[in-house]
C-alpha cells in the first residue's frame, strides 16, 4: 500500500531581548552558571512577574509576518509539572488564548510554492539547564536560561513529506532572521524544532496515530528523523502492528528514533490562568505601529532583487533564503555592475567554501568589497577567471586583499604578445600530430592545443590573447 505522511511542526525560537520575559535578568548566552538569576525567575515567594514589552512586540511582529490574527485580549497560563529545571514547578505559557493564530507560511517546494497553515504563535518562558556528570547520583542545575523569552510557533498538519518539513523550517528561520526577532542560532539552542508525524493510505482523509519526534538539533536532522519515522511506521503497519502514540527521541549517531518511555501523568499539565499576570490587552494603534515597522520579508526581497538587479528568479530565491546572503549579494552588487556575475560567485564558489568549512556567511573572511575587487581584476585583464578561483580560495582562508594575493603569488595574467608567441611556437613544435589534424580541418583539436598552451603558462595566459595568437600561428604554419 502507498502511504503519505501527515506532519506538523512545533518551533521554539528564543527572542532576541536584553532581559528575560518577566524580570530584569540578562539573557546573554554563555555566562557563568547561576549569575543571571533573581527572586522572580527562581520562583521565590512574594515576587510578581512583569511582562517585557519587547517580547510582546516581537511576537506580534512575527504573527503579522505570518499573516496571523492578533488577539486583542489574551492571557497567560500556568503549565504545571515537576522537573528540576523549573524552579516554580510551573512554566508561564499561553494556552487557550495565544497572542497570534490562524496564519500561513508559503514554502518553496518542487519549483512551486505551497501554503502551510500556522495554528498559533505564543509567548512563554524557557526552563533552566541540567548538567549530568558522567557518574554519581546528582545533577547540577543552572537557572540562567530560566525565564528567557521563547516564542512557540505551531504549524497545522499540512506538511506531507520530510522535504516539505525541511523547507518549512528553512523558510520560517529565514523569516525570523529578516524580522530580527531571533538570532536562530541552532547550536546555542535559540531555535529548536519538534515534529508530530503520522502516516495514512494515500488519498485517505482520516488521520493515523501520531508520534512526537524530539531531540533534532538541525533542520537536516529533522528531515532525516522524519524519513526514518515514515519508514518505521510503514514497516509496523505492513507487519500488521499498530502505531503507539508516544514521544520518540532522534538518535543522530545511530540514525534512529527511540521511544522515550514516560509515564502518562507526565502529560497532565493542568493548565490554568496565571493569577500573577493580568490579561494582556493589545489595541489597534499598537498593532498598526508594529505593522508599519515590518521589514522587507524574504519573498518581497526576492521580487525586488529580480527587478533591481535583473537576476533570474532562481538566483533571487537562493540568495534571499538567508538574510545575510542577500545582504552580502546586495553590497557586492552595488560595488560591481555585473550583478549576475556576483550572484554566480555567491551561489557558487562562496557557498561551496562555506558549506565545506561549515562557516556562516556573516562570519566569513570574504567580504562583499573583496569579491567586487576580485571581479574587477578579471575585467581589467589582470587575472583570468580560472586564476580568480584560486585567489578566491586564498581570500577565504586569509582575508587578504585580492590585489595583494595576485601580486605576492605572481599570478598576473600574461596578455603580452612577446611573451605568448614563444610559448605558442613551442606547443606547435611539440605537437606535430594534432597540428596536422587541425590543419586538415578538425576544429576540435584546437581546444587541445589551447589547453597545452595554457598549461605551459600555468594558466596565467589571457585566454583571448592566447586564442588569437595560436590561430594566427597555426594559419602561418
Amino acid at each position, binding site marked *: 500500500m502507498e502511504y503519505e505522511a501527515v506532519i506538523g511542526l512545533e518551533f521554539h525560537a528564543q527572542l532576541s531581548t*536584553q532581559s528575560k520575559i518577566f524580570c*530584569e*535578568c540578562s539573557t546573554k548566552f554563555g555566562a557563568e552558571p547561576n*549569575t*543571571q538569576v533573581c527572586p522572580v525567575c527562581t520562583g521565590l515567594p512574594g515576587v510578581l512577574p512583569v*511582562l517585557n514589552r519587547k517580547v510582546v512586540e516581537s511576537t506580534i511582529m512575527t504573527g503579522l509576518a505570518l499573516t496571523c490574527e492578533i488577539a486583542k485580549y489574551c492571557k497567560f497560563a500556568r503549565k504545571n509539572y515537576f522537573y528540576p529545571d523549573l524552579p516554580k514547578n510551573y512554566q508561564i505559557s499561553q494556552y487557550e488564548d495565544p497572542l497570534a493564530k490562524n496564519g500561513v507560511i508559503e514554502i518553496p517546494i518542487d519549483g512551486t510554492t505551497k501554503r502551510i497553515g500556522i495554528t498559533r504563535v505564543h509567548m512563554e518562558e524557557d526552563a533552566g539547564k*541540567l548538567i549530568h556528570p558522567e557518574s554519581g547520583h546528582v545533577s547540577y*542545575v543552572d537557572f540562567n536560561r530560566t525565564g528567557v523569552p521563547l516564542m512557540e510557533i505551531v504549524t497545522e498538519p499540512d506538511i506531507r513529506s520530510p522535504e516539505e518539513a525541511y523547507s518549512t523550517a528553512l523558510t520560517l528561520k529565514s523569516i525570523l532572521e529578516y524580522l530580527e526577532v531571533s538570532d536562530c542560532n541552532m547550536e546555542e539552542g535559540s531555535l529548536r524544532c519538534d515534529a508530530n508525524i503520522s502516516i495514512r493510505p494515500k488519498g485517505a482523509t482520516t488521520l493515523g496515530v501520531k508520534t512526537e519526534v524530539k531531540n533534532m538539533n538541525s533542520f537536516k536532522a529533522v528531515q532525516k528523523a522524519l524519513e526514518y519515522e515514515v519508514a518505521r511506521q510503514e514497516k509496523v503497519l505492513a507487519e500488521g502492528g499498530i502505531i503507539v502514540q508516544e514521544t520518540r527521541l532522534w538518535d543522530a549517531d545511530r540514525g534512529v528514533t527511540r521511544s522515550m518511555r514516560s509515564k502518562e*501523568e507526565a502529560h497532565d499539565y493542568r493548565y490554568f490562568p496565571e493569577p500573577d499576570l493580568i*490579561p494582556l490587552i493589545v489595541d489597534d494603534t499598537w498593532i498598526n505601529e508594529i505593522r508599519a515597522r515590518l521589514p522587507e520579508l524574504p519573498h518581497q526581497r526576492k521580487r525586488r532583487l529580480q527587478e533591481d538587479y535583473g537576476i533570474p528568479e532562481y538566483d533571487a530565491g537562493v540568495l534571499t533564503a538567508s538574510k545575510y546572503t542577500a545582504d552580502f549579494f546586495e553590497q557586492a552588487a552595488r560595488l560591481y555592475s555585473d550583478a549576475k556575475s556576483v550572484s554566480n560567485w555567491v551561489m557558487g564558489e562562496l557557498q561551496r567554501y562555506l558549506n565545506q568549512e561549515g562557516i556562516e556567511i556573516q562570519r566569513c573572511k570574504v567580504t562583499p568589497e573583496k569579491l567586487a575587487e576580485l571581479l574587477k581584476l578579471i575585467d581589467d585583464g589582470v587575472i583570468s577567471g580560472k586564476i580568480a578561483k584560486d585567489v578566491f580560495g586564498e581570500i577565504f582562508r586569509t582575508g587578504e586583499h585580492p590585489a595583494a594575493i595576485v601580486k605576492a603569488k605572481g599570478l598576473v595574467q600574461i596578455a603580452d604578445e612577446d611573451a605568448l608567441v614563444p610559448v605558442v611556437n613551442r606547443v606547435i613544435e611539440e605537437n606535430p600530430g594534432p597540428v596536422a589534424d587541425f590543419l586538415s580541418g578538425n576544429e576540435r583539436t584546437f581546444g587541445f592545443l589551447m589547453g597545452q598552451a595554457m598549461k605551459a603558462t600555468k594558466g596565467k595566459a589571457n585566454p583571448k590573447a592566447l586564442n588569437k595568437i595560436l590561430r594566427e600561428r597555426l594559419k602561418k604554419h
Partner: protein
Amino acid sequence: MRITREVIEHVAKLSRLSFKEKELEGFISQLNEILQYVEKLNELDTSDVPPTSHMFFTKTPMREDRVREEPSPIDRILENAPQREDNFFIVPRVIE
C-alpha cells in the same frame, strides 16, 4: 465530577505528595462535599458570560527591555538550595 480514590492518588502523584491510608479516606469524602457545595453554582445560567480569568478589570503593566545593573543576588538565592556546589544547585540525578 465525583472524586474517587483513583483521582486522589493521581493528583497526589502529580503534586509529589504521599498520604497515609486514613488520610486518603478522609479526602474522598471531604473533597466530594466541597465539590457538591460548589456544584450549586451550576444552577445559574452562565452561557452568555465570558469566563473570568482575573479579578482585576485592568490590563497588565509592562516593562521596557532593560537589564538590571546590580549583579544577581546569587548567594542569597543559593541559600535556599538543599545542596549546592560552587554556583550550582544540586538535585538528585534525573536521568537514567
